[in-house]
């Protein structure tokens, strides 16, 4: 026992020790902050619940975007840094349809149908952008060193941002309100009297349904099997008669459609769109994908939900108790600190590698 400990100690470097000290400090901060805030009783249980619920809604949007990062990584081992712009292109374009339908009175007379049309257009545009991106920018570089497509993706990200800025002008545009999703719903009115914003419920429920649908597509359909086969071994998949190029296109399409849907949810929650709207959600969703173990589908979904709740509850729970003023402003800092910590301490993510790589 002691022997083994001594043996292991020999392989611990100074950097390791420094890192563990940082981790211990952060953990202490979290514990002390949470203890202070909870004993102080600044927030009621209901308020904490509100944090969790809005975190879940936000997180389900991250999860939908993260799906695209993780599927593309799984199949091409590249981070598609332009995915945030795929997410932006759909709702930004669909805004004009929404505006048109609003002027025609459809958002007033048939709000859910109008929303559905906007949603479909958004998904279509994001899908087309994602597939074109792969076809025009990434496919010619397949087989190049990994840095090359990465730099291309960053370039494509700027290209798309400024193209859409040029096309649709730089200002913020307000999405129309959807009457049936305004206000709140009350659950268990007689006992718990749980009052939750309708929008949060709608976003969370539809996102989760979509996630389940997409997961089932990958897991149980023939095309899904092709995607999994190509992700494991492109050449072996080709030897089974799988059209590898086509399968990669489909993968980008699935990620694009999910991002387009997420974009509309985002636009509904925050009521506005512009050319830059993909940047932060894109980075957050990338973080979520890493948290869940990049390349791992259920991981990306869990990672998204986890990140959403963490950054919603975190500022009040960990920081306010330490006396940090305006803690809520620091939610992005919390999210990205978590990304760095995961990359250092657990690069395989929460779920880890499900199976060791073949020798």
């Amino acid at each position, binding site marked *: 026992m002691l022997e083994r400990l001594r043996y292991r100690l020999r392989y611990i470097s100074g950097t390791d020790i420094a890192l563990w000290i940082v981790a211990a400090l952060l953990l202490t901060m979290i514990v002390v902050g949470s203890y202070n805030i909870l004993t102080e009783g600044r927030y009621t249980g209901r308020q904490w619940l509100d944090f969790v619920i809005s975190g879940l809604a936000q997180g389900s949007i991250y999860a939908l975007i993260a799906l695209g990062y993780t599927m593309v990584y799984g199949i091409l081992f590249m981070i598609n840094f332009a995915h945030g712009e795929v997410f932006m292109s759909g709702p930004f374009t669909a805004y004009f349809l929404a505006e048109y339908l609003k002027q025609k009175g459809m958002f007033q007379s048939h709000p859910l149908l109008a929303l559905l049309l906007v949603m479909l257009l958004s998904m279509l545009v994001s899908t087309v952008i994602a597939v074109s991106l792969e076809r025009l920018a990434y496919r010619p570089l397949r087989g190049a060193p990994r840095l090359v497509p990465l730099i291309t993706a960053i370039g494509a990200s700027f290209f798309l941002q400024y193209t859409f800025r040029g096309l649709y002008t730089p200002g913020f545009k307000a999405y129309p309100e959807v009457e049936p999703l305004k206000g709140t719903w009350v659950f268990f009115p007689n006992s718990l009297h749980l009052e939750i914003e309708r929008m949060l419920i709608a976003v969370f429920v539809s996102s989760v349904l979509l996630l389940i649908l997409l997961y089932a597509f990958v897991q149980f359909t*023939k095309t899904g*099997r*092709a995607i*999994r*086969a190509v992700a*494991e*071994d492109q*050449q*072996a*998949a*080709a*030897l*089974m*008669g*799988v*059209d*590898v190029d086509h399968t990669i296109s489909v993968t980008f399409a699935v990620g694009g459609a999910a991002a387009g849907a997420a974009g509309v949810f985002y636009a509904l929650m925050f009521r506005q769109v512009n050319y830059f709207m993909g940047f932060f959600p894109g980075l957050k969703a990338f973080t979520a994908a890493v948290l869940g173990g990049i390349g791992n589908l259920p991981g990306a979904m869990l990672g998204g939900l986890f990140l959403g709740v963490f950054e919603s509850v975190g500022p009040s729970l960990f920081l306010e108790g330490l006396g940090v003023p305006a803690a809520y402003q620091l939610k992005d800092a919390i999210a990205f600190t978590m990304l760095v910590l995961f990359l250092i301490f657990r690069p395989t993510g929460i779920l880890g590698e*499900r*199976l*060791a*790589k*073949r020798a």
Partner: protein
Amino acid sequence: MAYFEVRDLHVYYGAIHALKGISLRVEEGEIVTLIGANGAGKTTTLRAISGLVRPRSGQILFEGEDLLRYKPHEIVTQKRVIHVPEGRRVFARMTVEENLYMGAFTRTDRDKVEEDLERVYQLFPRLKERRRQLAGTLSGGEQQMLAIGRGLMAAPRLLLMDEPSMGLAPILVESIFETIQEINKQGTTILLVEQNAHMALQIAHRGYVLRTGEIVLHDTAENLRANEMVQKTYLGMA
């Protein structure tokens, strides 16, 4: 016209001239073996046939039609020329049965697929016992069975096998070769690449000897077994 024929095939990897104009032929119903030492170009030959590497020049004719026009997946779907690759390459994160269905990926004749699945399970009862197990957790020998079974699920009209005996215990080698012979008797034409020339020449009808990218000898398996050079170099006889 030969059933399958390779004519004057040249393959380069950059500056490396891996195949220097090889020609060979396989008739319907035959097992033909391609033997040679490490680096002779055996795998390269199979990869060229299944479209994974582009030859510089030459022809690959299946029933008279040149396969070079086709992409790898089209060679599978349209010609049913099936390649069981070196090193098994099973899909580790799929179950045994999912792997077998991947073999039948492009087939539309569902009833026949189910029949073929039963046939594979009959050839390899071990796979049936483990059908729900992830392929990555199979032993090396079981993975080899799975790779062969997966190839059979494609209803091959020509089966290309790259060193099916590699890394297997002697007793398993024997039974794999018996199975290959059985598969051939059930009607599948086979081009078998092997380093184990001893076993390969026992089940094959004819054989080609490949040395550093060139065919140096071809004859019936019987004659090759009796050939002095083959005995010395590939069969390890004094």
